[in-house]
């Protein structure tokens, strides 16, 4: 029987949730607010929360100085491309681990995850040399492969968790009906796992969009995404906080909107399998 929740408890829970939510949102709010200040107002002490001369000048300067659309397009291509290829590779991998596990499946899953613990800078030179050797430096395809590979462990783990929830009997029934392996994955497994695949893709898209080590270190003038756009406004010798905030706001806006409209799928993706 479900436990009764009192009104007082509901109010308390809501208040705590809102407080935590606002705390997490505050840096984003502050960035957006700062983007409408002058550089002098941006560093004002005490900080200016609302009552200041709002200006769009920073956005105008950023637009004049940088080709925002080129960076945005690169971000879309890199995040989208790495996500699609990642899922294409991840679905068969997760299928085999979920439905035909071997003795070592758990070890392989853990090993895959352990690669995420490797500091990226530790393999900067080998990857850079490979990129130079194969002419991939500052190309979208090179970065798509790198972003796909670094996020692949998460894709496989998430899909594996989803697939484990699907009754194996259904797949067996399909097999008995004469479905080939390709048909089984494409026409039986995938439609049932669409919500899981969608949330995996969303999360991977966000991770690839925000990736800021490889996208800065393997690009120059052509393939730089929005992370490179933001980095061009950061400076340890000079106050560019308002312009940096405008650039950051422009960079996070698309992903913020995407996240807003798909929050249900995202939450489901992140919590799936946590509660049985």
């Amino acid at each position: 029987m479900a436990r009764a929740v009192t009104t007082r408890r509901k109010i308390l829970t809501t208040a705590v949730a809102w407080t935590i939510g606002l705390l997490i949102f505050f840096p984003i709010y502050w960035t957006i607010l700062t983007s409408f200040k002058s550089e002098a107002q941006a560093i004002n002490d005490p900080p200016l929360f609302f009552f200041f001369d709002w200006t769009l000048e920073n956005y105008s300067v950023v637009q004049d100085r940088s080709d925002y659309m080129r960076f945005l397009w690169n971000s879309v291509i890199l995040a989208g491309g790495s996500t699609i290829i990642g899922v294409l590779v991840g679905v068969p991998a997760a299928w085999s681990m979920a439905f035909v596990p071997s003795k070592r499946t758990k070890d392989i899953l853990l090993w895959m995850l352990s690669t995420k613990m490797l500091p990226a800078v530790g393999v900067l030179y080998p990857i850079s040399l490979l990129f130079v050797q194969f002419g991939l430096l500052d190309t979208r395809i090179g970065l798509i492969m790198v972003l796909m590979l670094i996020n692949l462990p998460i894709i496989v783990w998430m899909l594996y968790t989803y697939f484990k929830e699907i009754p194996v009997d259904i797949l067996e029934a399909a097999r008995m009906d004469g479905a080939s392996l390709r048909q089984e994955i494409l026409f039986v497994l995938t439609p049932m796992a669409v919500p899981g695949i969608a949330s995996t893709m969303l999360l991977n898209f966000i991770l690839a969009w925000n990736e800021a080590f490889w996208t800065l270190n393997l690009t120059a003038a052509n393939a730089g995404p929005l992370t490179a756009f933001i980095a061009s406004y950061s400076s340890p010798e000079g106050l560019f906080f308002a312009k940096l905030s405008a650039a950051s706001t422009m960079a996070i806006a698309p992903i913020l909107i995407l996240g807003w409209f798909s929050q249900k799928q995202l939450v489901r993706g992140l919590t799936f399998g946590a509660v049985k």
Partner: protein
Amino acid sequence: MYLKNRLFGATALAMIAATGVSAENLVIATVNNGDMIRMQGLTDDFTEKTGHTVEWVTLEENVLRQRVTTDITTKGGAFDIMTIGMYETPIWGANDWLVALDDLSADYDVDDILPAMRNGLSYDGTLYAAPFYGESSMVMYRTDLMAAAGLEMPESPTWDFIREAAAAMTDRDNDINGICLRGKAGWGEGGAFITVTANSFGARWFDEDWNAQFDQPEWKNALEFFVGMMAESGPPGYATNGFNENLSLFQQGKCGMWIDATVAASFVTNPNDSTVADSVGFALAPNTGLGKNANWLWAWALAIPAGTQKADAAKEFIEWATSKEYIELVAANEGWANVPPGARTSLYANPEYQKVPFAQKTLDSINAADPTNPTVKPVPYVGIQFVAIPEFAGIATEVSQEFSAVYAGQQSIDDALAKAQALTNDAMEAAGYR
């Protein structure tokens, strides 16, 4: 607009035909600061004159350093021109990673480059990077607060005077700190500042045999003085303050004095950004009477990586960007206070530039810095706020973290110096210096 574009294209084509050099597209890696951004805005002038086009890759200083280092060591060839500093230039020049700038045109007048900058950007007498702008460090102080304290800033103050003045100007009730200095960890942040301070106290990073010198009394004296003065008159939390944090404090009238890069002078005297623009004075960086002022020497310079296929066009760009004509172009567009400082002797002979309040002190500070003879005692290295060896950035970052922990009250000066001594000697031994 259409006509303008046609004329622009025709001029570029005429230039290409006249020079016989095909038009190239140059990719330039650079840092984000006011002077560099200004240059990006004026690039059309270069394209108009040469026909070459330019694509900029602007990055934050530390990201840029990592990016261009990776590119040059892996022969990536992603950039045709790199913005590098005095630390990298002699090391990369020695490794033949840069194209020597030994055949610049006569019109360029290479002898006009300030001698300190030319020496710092050369290896074995050959120039490997042309200074776009140069800087030293100096004292910037509030003339009104100094007068109210009944003190007068000497041209070349001692550290004792600075400490006395800082204490006199400190007004905690009104949120005024007598002095603001860098304490932030990082070899180019607080590490640079404490190194030049220690230089003026007679300390050095290494003796002639590359033994670390943090166990010597000069380092302890310097740190004790610094920590004591900052406790009396510095802002709270100075252990995390770097250039930008102090600039922000000074511009808001919360510092009596600030000792930092000479390029900051144009920021603190700019009435659009600074609330104290009309009451700022300048003096040479302090000393202890041992013959060394606590000032550094730095330049952001343009260099050509050896892997580029467009070295000739890249040289043309460097000649344009670091020329006397470029300075005049900036002056015509943005005023003399905004021209890139600290690179050319002729700039300081210009009567218009001499009217800029910080011009002479900037030149005096640069001239007072000697990277080949940076300390009171002899040293085996070149560099004032750094040691021009590849291992320095890693070692100094760790050492500065230990010192920042002292500023934050997390450990004692003795502990920090002992750790600095051990980690530096270990690293130098591993690198084969000892």
